[in-house]
C-alpha cells in the first residue's frame, strides 16, 4: 500500500517522460504538441502584480511540502514534520520547508512585548527589547540545524521509505543575528559563570544547558532566516543559533539566558537527548553532530523515471565539526566507490551539495554516499555504528544510508551486508 502510494506520482511522471521520449524520436510526425500547439499561457494574460503580494510556489509544485509521520507522537502539537529533501537542490532550505519540531505548538509571539533577559552569574542582570537587540553589530552565517533524532527511526532496520522521513529533520539557512558574545559581555559574565541556560517563551519553556565556551565562541541570537524574519515555527521573533550542535539546543522564542556555575540537567538533557547504550548506561551532553550524508535523488520518493542513460545522482552532506571536503558515492553497494563532485559554497557547519553523474545501464543499483569532514572523520556504516552503540540510542544516527534501485528505477530503503 505504502509502496503504491509513494510511487504513484512517480508512475505519472514516468508516463509523461515516456510520451516526451516518443515525440523526440519522431513518432509524431506533426511535431511535439507542446511546441506546435499554442498553450493558454502563451496567449492569455496572467495575474497582475497585486495577485501575489507574498509569492508562493507554482501550483505544479504543491506536493512539495513538509510532512508528518503520525504514528511517531501522541499529538501534532508536540511533534515533528520533515523537510522534503528529495525536492530540493543547492544548499539553502526555503523557509516554508524547514522541518518543524516544537513541544507545545507554534507560539505566536508579539515582538512588541517580547523581551530577552540575561540573569544569574553576571555583573548586571539585563533586559533587552527586540529593538535593543537589533542595535548590536550583526553577522550573516549559513548553518545546518539537525535534530539529534534525525534518522532515529532507522537504528533497528530500514523503516521509512523516503529520505524526507529518514533524513528530513534538517535544514540549512542563512541567519542574520547578533553574536551571543556581545550580549553576554554587555551583562558581564562572572569568572565562575561556566554554563548558560537559554529558555524559550513558548508553553514548553524549553531549556538546555550550554557550556560558556560554546556560548562565547560562535553562538548567535538570530532574528532573520534567509533574509526575512524568522518564521513563527522557527522561533519568531528570535532564536538561539548553536552551530554544529543538536537542534534541540537552538532554543526558539528565546526569552531568557541564565548564567550559572553548573549544568541544570533539565528534562531535554536527561529524559531526552541522552544516548542509551546496550549496557543500559547512557551518554549525555552529546552535542556535536557527526559528519553525515544522504543521497536525495534518486530515493524512494524520487525514483529514476527516464530509463537508462546519463543519470545524475545528488545529495547533501554536513558535519558539526567543520566542512565537507569530500563525499564518496557507490552504485554497487560499497564494492567500489568514486568521489562525488561538490558544488556550491563550502561553509563551516553548513550543508554541502554533491553530484555524481554516470551512465546507467538499467541494472539494479545499491546506492550509498559517504561523507568525509575537515577533521578527517569518515561517515561510518550502520553496522559499524550499531557495533559501538547498540540499537536503542535513538539519537545521533549518522550512518551511511542505502537505497536499492530496481530496473524500473523504483527506489527503496534497505540495509545491506
Amino acid at each position: 500500500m505504502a509502496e503504491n502510494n509513494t510511487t504513484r506520482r512517480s508512475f505519472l511522471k514516468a508516463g509523461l517522460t515516456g510520451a516526451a521520449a516518443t515525440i523526440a524520436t519522431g513518432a509524431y510526425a506533426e511535431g511535439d504538441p507542446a511546441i506546435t500547439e499554442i498553450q493558454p499561457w502563451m496567449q492569455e494574460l496572467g495575474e497582475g502584480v497585486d495577485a501575489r503580494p507574498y509569492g508562493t510556489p507554482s501550483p505544479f509544485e504543491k506536493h512539495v511540502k513538509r510532512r508528518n509521520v503520525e504514528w511517531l507522537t501522541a499529538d501534532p502539537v508536540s511533534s515533528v514534520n520533515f523537510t522534503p529533501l528529495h525536492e530540493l537542490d543547492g544548499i539553502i532550505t526555503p523557509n516554508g520547508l524547514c522541518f518543524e519540531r516544537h513541544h507545545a505548538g507554534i507560539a505566536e509571539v508579539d515582538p512588541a512585548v517580547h523581551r530577552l533577559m540575561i540573569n544569574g552569574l553576571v555583573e548586571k542582570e539585563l533586559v533587552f527589547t527586540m529593538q535593543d537587540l537589533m542595535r548590536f553589530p550583526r553577522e550573516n552565517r549559513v548553518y545546518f540545524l539537525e535534530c539529534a533524532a534525525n534518522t532515529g527511526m532507522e537504528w533497528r532496520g530500514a523503516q521509512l521509505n523516503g529520505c524526507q522521513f529518514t533524513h528530513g529533520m534538517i535544514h540549512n539557512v542563512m541567519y542574520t543575528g547578533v553574536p551571543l558574545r556581545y550580549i553576554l559581555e554587555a551583562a558581564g559574565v562572572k569568572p565562575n559563570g561556566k554554563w548558560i541556560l537559554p529558555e524559550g517563551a513558548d508553553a514548553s519553556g524549553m531549556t538546555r544547558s550550554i557550556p560558556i565556551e560554546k556560548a562565547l565562541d560562535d553562538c548567535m541570537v538570530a532574528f532573520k532566516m534567509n533574509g526575512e524574519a524568522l518564521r513563527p515555527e522557527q522561533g519568531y521573533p528570535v532564536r538561539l543559533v548553536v552551530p554544529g550542535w543538536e537542534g534541540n539546543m537552538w532554543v526558539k522564542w528565546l526569552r531568557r539566558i541564565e548564567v550559572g556555575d553548573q549544568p541544570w540537567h533539565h528534562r531535554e538533557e536527561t529524559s531526552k537527548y541522552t544516548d542509551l547504550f546496550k549496557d543500559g548506561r547512557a551518554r549525555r551532553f552529546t552535542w556535536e553532530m557527526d559528519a553525515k550524508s544522504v543521497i536525495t535523488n534518486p530515493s524512494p520518493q524520487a525514483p529514476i523515471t527516464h530509463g537508462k542513460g546519463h543519470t545524475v545522482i545528488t545529495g547533501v552532506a554536513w558535519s558539526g565539526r567543520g566542512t565537507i571536503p569530500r563525499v564518496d558515492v557507490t552504485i554497487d553497494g560499497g564494492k567500489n566507490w568514486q568521489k562525488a563532485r561538490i558544488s556550491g559554497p563550502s561553509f563551516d557547519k553548513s550543508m554541502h551539495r554533491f553530484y555524481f553523474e554516470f551512465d546507467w545501464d538499467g541494472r539494479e543499483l545499491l546506492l550509498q554516499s559517504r561523507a568525509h569532514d575537515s577533521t578527517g572523520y569518515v561517515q561510518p556504516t550502520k553496522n559499524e555504528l550499531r557495533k559501538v552503540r547498540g540499537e536503542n540510542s535513538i539519537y545521533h544516527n549518522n550512518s551511511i544510508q542505502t537505497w536499492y534501485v530496481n530496473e524500473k528505477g523504483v527506489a527503496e530503503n534497505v540495509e545491506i551486508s
Partner: protein
Amino acid sequence: MSRFLDGRMPYVVCALGFLLAAWLYYWGTGYNEDKFVEIAEQREETQRQLDQRDIKIRDLNLQIREALNAPVPVKLGDPLPETRDYALGRAALQVEVAAWDIDVRPDGKGLPKGRGDVFTGEEVFSENCATCHGDFGEAVDRWPVLAGGHDTLAEEDPVKTIGSYWPYLSTVYDYVYRAMPFGNAQSLSHDDVYAITAYLLYVNDLVEDDFELSHENFGSISLPNEKNFYPDDRATTEYAAFTGEPCMSDCKQSVEITARARVIDVTPEEEGAEKQEVAALDTDQAVSSLVASGERVFRKCRSCHEIGASARNKSGPQLTGILGRKFGSLDNFNYSSAFKQAASEERIWDEASMAAFLAKPKGYLPGTKMGFAGLKKQEDLDAIIAYLKSAGE
C-alpha cells in the same frame, strides 16, 4: 538690413537645399564597381579580425572564470568589531527575574519553598494529569509513560521513565512546574507540584504512601539511575575508528540486502480527503471574527479534543455539533460517572450550560475527568461558544 534679410530668408534656405540635394543625387549615382569590391573586402577582413578577437576574449573570460572558481577559501566577510559598551538594554528588576527564573537544579538551587504528600499528589494528578498520563503514570494511548520500566534499560525495548531512567528528581519538579499540564503550563501551585512529585516517586515504588516531599527533604532523595550517565566520549571511543582513508575499490566480494523498509510498511501515505475537509472548515470560519477568535481559544482544548467533520475522540470526546448534543452521549467514549449521570438525566448542551461548564468544569460538574482549569475571561467564553457552534454546522 536685418529686416530685409528676414523677409527673404525662407527662399534663400530653399534654394540652397535644392542645390545640395541635386549634387548628392549626382554623386550618389556615380557608381564605381572596383571601389565597391575593394571596400567590401576590407570590411569583411575587418569583421573576421573582430570575430577572432571576440572568440579570444570569450576564451580569456572563461579562463578568468576558471581561475576565480578555483577552490579558494570562502570569504565570510570582514571581522566583527571589538566588543565595547554599547549601552543597550536596561537593568532587570528583581520582580522580573523572579517571574521568569523558575529553573531548579540538582543541587537544589532554584527550588522554591513548599510541601506536598503522596495522598494530595494522587488527587492533583488525577485531576490534572491522568487524562493523558493515566492514573498511575502508565499513560493513555501514546502519551508519555511516567512510571515503571525498572530494569528494562539494557533490554530490547527499554522503558524510560522517571523511576527507571531519569537521573535527578529536580528535573521532575522543574519540568512539571514549567511545562505541565500540557496546554496549561505554569498553572499549578508550588505545593501542588511538590505533591505531584511525591506521587510520581510513589508510583515508581521509590517512597511509601505516607511520604511528604518538601524543600527540606528534597536533597535527600536520589533517583536509582543517576550513576548510569556519563559524558560524551565519542572523541576517545569513536573518532579514531571512524577516521582515515577508506577502501575505494574491490572492497567486498558480494552484497546482500538484509532488511527492507517495504516489508515494515510504516511510511505515511499521501493525505486523503479527510484532511481537506478539516481545511475547508477552517477557511469558512475565518469569515466571522468572533468565530476566528474562538478558534484561537480552541487551542487550549485541542490537546484533548478534535472538532469538525472528521474529528475523532482523543483523550477527550470529539466535539462536533456539541451544542444541542446530549451530555456524555458518545457511545465510543468512556465518560466519567459524573457525565454518565448527566446523560441519564437527558441534559442537553446549550449556551448557558456550556458557558458555566467551561468557566469552571469541576465546579459545574463535580467528578468530571476533564483536566482543564476553566476559561476565566467572558470574551473567551463567548468566542469559544461561537466557534463550537460554527464548527458543528
